[in-house]
């Protein structure tokens, strides 16, 4: 009994430490960016080129409080875009430039708005194909080359091959470590709390990659060391989520701290996910090949990364989700979409049909980006988990 208590105390301390982001990511959080930043919005933006140009690549998470942005967009428009625009209206001077993608109708119009009403910061739109074949890869390679030229203009000089190679290595390393981290998160649901996991993901998208990687390596090192000592005994003494039903979350740009905290408090066992704020960002490496142009390798990676519902082949996306469900023994799916995301909304009828065929229940939630109604969502998630 005494031993059990000691194990519990040790585990609690370890867990507390592992979830102390400020402690492990102190350098990332406090470092002042010496380099200029280029902002981006969609995971189809090849960060490698931004880094190769000597800039910091910063994903815009947007301002939660919308004031001015409403007058630029209709009421039923992507709330992330409105938040992003609110953020640019207030903080655009923090950026050297903005890079958009034509990922969806909303983003196309967002780029138009930024181009027309934000004259002090240049904007660029990267054309991302919807198809995944040789022709689309070649076309996309050309478009990435065009984006490179845009960055070269900002830089004032050419970006050389070595700079791109180094950036590819750096971002690949980030992807590899984030993948490792996410595997630990899925396997040890008692150890890393859901909000912690997504805070780390957020930091990975907004920070200087070198500083972030230093912190992440140390962090993973610490988690690895505790795994061998405390965790094994500790897990059995914690509220055990191993017997809870494994849940997969499918969504888009879900970056709602209150949601993660709520799910964490409900002891939800998150075993897999498909989000723009996690695996769609870090999934799949750029595979370089001496016989292949570097930009082509980058194009290949971005077209074949865990895909957004925007891509033409919805069938392969659904197959990707089905594989994940089987592989991770998922018992229920929570489908969370930001309101008015057409690509997500159109994927749901088929997804629902496929999940029905597999006997997997699904909970459909659509949320605002800036006005999370916790009470209502909590009741629905609770009922869903009880049903499972």
């Amino acid at each position, binding site marked *: 009994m005494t031993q059990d208590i000691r194990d519990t105390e040790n585990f609690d301390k370890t867990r507390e430490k592992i979830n102390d982001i400020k402690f492990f990511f102190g350098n990332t959080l406090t470092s002042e960016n010496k380099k200029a930043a280029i902002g981006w919005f969609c995971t189809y933006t090849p960060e490698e080129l931004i880094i190769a140009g000597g800039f910091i690549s910063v994903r815009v998470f947007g301002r939660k409080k919308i004031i001015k942005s409403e*007058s*630029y*967009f*209709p009421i*039923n*428009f*992507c709330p992330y875009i409105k938040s992003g625009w609110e953020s640019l209206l207030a903080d655009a001077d923090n950026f050297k430039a903005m890079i958009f993608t*034509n990922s*969806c*109708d*909303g983003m*196309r*119009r*967002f*780029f*138009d*708005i930024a*181009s*027309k009403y934000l004259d002090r910061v240049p904007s660029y*739109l990267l*054309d991302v*194909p*919807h*198809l995944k074949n040789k*022709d*689309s890869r*070649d*076309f996309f390679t*050309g*478009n990435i080359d065009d984006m490179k030229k845009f960055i070269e203009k900002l830089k004032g000089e050419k970006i050389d091959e070595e700079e791109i190679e180094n950036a590819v290595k750096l971002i690949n390393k980030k992807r590899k470590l984030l993948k490792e981290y996410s595997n630990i998160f899925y396997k040890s649901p008692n150890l890393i709390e859901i909000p912690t996991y997504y805070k780390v993901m957020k930091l990975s998208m907004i920070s200087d990659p070198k500083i972030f990687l230093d912190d992440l390596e140390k962090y993973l090192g610490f988690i690895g060391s505790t795994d061998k000592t405390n965790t094994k005994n500790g897990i059995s003494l914690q509220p055990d989520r191993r017997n809870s039903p494994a849940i997969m979350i499918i969504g888009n740009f879900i970056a709602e701290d209150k949601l993660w905290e709520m799910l964490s408090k409900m002891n939800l066992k998150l075993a897999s996910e498909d989000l723009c704020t996690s695996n769609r960002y870090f999934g799949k490496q750029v595979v370089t090949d001496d016989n292949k142009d570097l930009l082509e390798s980058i194009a290949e990676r971005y077209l074949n990364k865990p895909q957004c*519902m*925007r891509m*033409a082949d*919805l*069938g392969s996306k659904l197959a990707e989700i089905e594989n994940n469900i089987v592989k991770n023994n998922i018992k229920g799916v929570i489908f969370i979409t930001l*309101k*008015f995301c*057409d*690509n997500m*909304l*159109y*994927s*749901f*009828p*088929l997804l*629902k049909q496929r999940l029905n065929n597999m006997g997997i229940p699904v909970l*459909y939630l*659509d949320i605002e980006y800036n006005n999370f109604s916790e009470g209502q969502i909590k009741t629905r998630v609770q009922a869903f988990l009880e049903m499972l």
Partner: protein
Amino acid sequence: MGIKNRLKTGIQKNLNLRYIKRLLGIIALKPVLYAYGKTFPSASDKYLNIFTIESLKKAYSDNNRPIGYGSLFIPYELFYALGITPFLPEVMAGFTAGLGLAPQTLKEASSHWYSQDLCTFHRSASGAAELDLFPRPDYIITSNLACDAAQKSFYIHSVKHNIEKNYYLIDVPYRYSEGSIRYLTAQIKNICTDICSKTGKKLDISMFEEAFGLSNELRKWAIEVGSLRKNLVDYPPSFNGLNFILPFHGLAGTREAVILYKEIYRDLKKYSDKQHKESLGKKKPAKRILWLHLKPYYRNEIFDILYRENCRVVFEEINHVYWPELDYKKPFESLARKMLSNFLGGSIDKRIDVTLKAAHDYKADGAILFSHWGCRQSNGGARIIKDNLKKINVPTLVLDGDCVDQNNSSQGQVKTRLQGFIEILNS
């Protein structure tokens, strides 16, 4: 009860594929069809209705296989060249509104998990598809041109009919560049090659000659109609430029479209000549309205109010001829250029250019942008369009509503806003 109302009531009571086929079988018989045509006040309306019914009859007839679903901005010359009978679900959604079927189709879509936040053209079409009101397709050709919705909802149709291998998305690039033309040309060629290998036809450029010739003729007459309208104020009763979506797109490449546009020209020419003869000075000049985006396809008061208030819709952006002549010797590249020229694809600058030029050419006093619920591509650009028109002193009313779902549009509010706008124009 007139023939039109009888048709409407009949289909509302018997909403099933068998009844639709039976109805088309009767009404598309030449004598019946032409008797029906005579109930319309102008030749253009008459031919519009006749050709629409005939094209539906073909799509619903099993004798005209293969049938291909196509989204609105696909170049339909492709269908006619390949011998595919086209069927346009988005246009059909407009008919569901006009025939009062939308409440049923939208309800069906909701029961299949289509969110109410989605565009009702696609929701209603999807509901109709789920109710099995559409003919079974052999091919589906869609694109990302203008909006995201078609490529997604049409993919669902392909799964329903188990023809995913015959689903083709034409991925239209954002920019008009040589690289974009190459990418798009290759896609169109691949689609044609693939379909020909499935239909057993030999892909030959001569198959495009007739369709392209007719399409070019349609283009010529559509430009003529547009030119005539630059000074036209009085129109034939019930003429509405927003009714010609099907022939402008879905019948491009057919003889029927050419006949129809010639008839529109003749109809309008009569009014133009009459206008010249009469002294316009006696009348208070009408306010000239440029219409942006689409309109409600159910019974509504918008155009009656405009007419009563002495306002005339002098042009609709959707009728802008945006593409160059097609060259059958370069069929794939020609179609690629047509698609890339569409002002609703890519940057909003293309739409601004068309809007400003139309406002200038048609001497618009004001513009109305009908803000159809769920249309992100159009509504997302409303502020920019409005600001640009303001620079040339053309006030714009962004009129919120729904083209298909009557219950999602407040008639009272529409009326109030419209009247407020007319007051501004008259002030």
